């Protein structure tokens, strides 16, 4: 559950989610659940001309299983803390 907790600390930050169908969406992270399903607000599709159907959409729910990458804001992440948490998680399991 490390990355679930990790993503919870990122709510309210702007992230870019790249999906397995090569669609990239930027938005404010609203919530995340245990499957790493993601909800974004104020979304913007990176290549909007190719996806005109998404112009009517402001917020979206993305199924965790279709996510390829998530680009995170560097200043919102403490890598040392993440490192420690990883070791702690490994010890506890």
């Amino acid at each position, binding site marked *: 559950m490390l990355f679930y907790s990790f993503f919870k600390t990122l709510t309210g930050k702007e992230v870019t989610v790249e999906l397995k169908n090569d669609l990239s969406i930027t938005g404010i992270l609203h919530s995340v659940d245990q499957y790493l*399903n993601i909800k974004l607000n104020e979304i913007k599709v990176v290549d909007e001309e190719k996806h*005109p159907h998404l112009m*009517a959409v402001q917020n979206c729910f993305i*199924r965790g299983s279709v996510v390829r990458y998530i680009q995170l804001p560097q200043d919102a992440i403490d890598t040392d803390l993440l490192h420690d948490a990883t070791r702690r998680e490994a010890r506890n399991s």
Partner: protein
Amino acid sequence: MDQGGQGQDRLANRHQVRTPLHAKALIEELDHKQLVVLRDGRKIVGLFRSCDQFANLVFQDPYERIIVGKQYCDIPLGSIYLLRGENVVLMGRIDDGKEYPLTLQRVSPAEIRKAQEAEKEEQRIRGTMLKRLDFLELE
């Protein structure tokens, strides 16, 4: 006997606590008009009525929105639709006022089917041409 009962209680409690957690993100969207993008690229629009933790989704009065180039068409799919969660890519709430993209032009189902076929044919031709070019390069 008693312990068994307690265990069951605990299980029930845990279930009660856990259920809203899974699906909370989806439950907020209930009874709103949604656009769903499927893994095969199809777009379904409908009134979102039910869901579960797998993101299986139920829609009322759904229609498929087909977009080809600058044209689009909505084709009704019946009255109730259950989408299996594994096919779902994303679901977004549609604002009532802004449902139809202004840059697109609405056409009849027959026209959109024709446009779809034309696009498919074009892609097929492009594919075979690329294959031939690959072949020439290998020689």
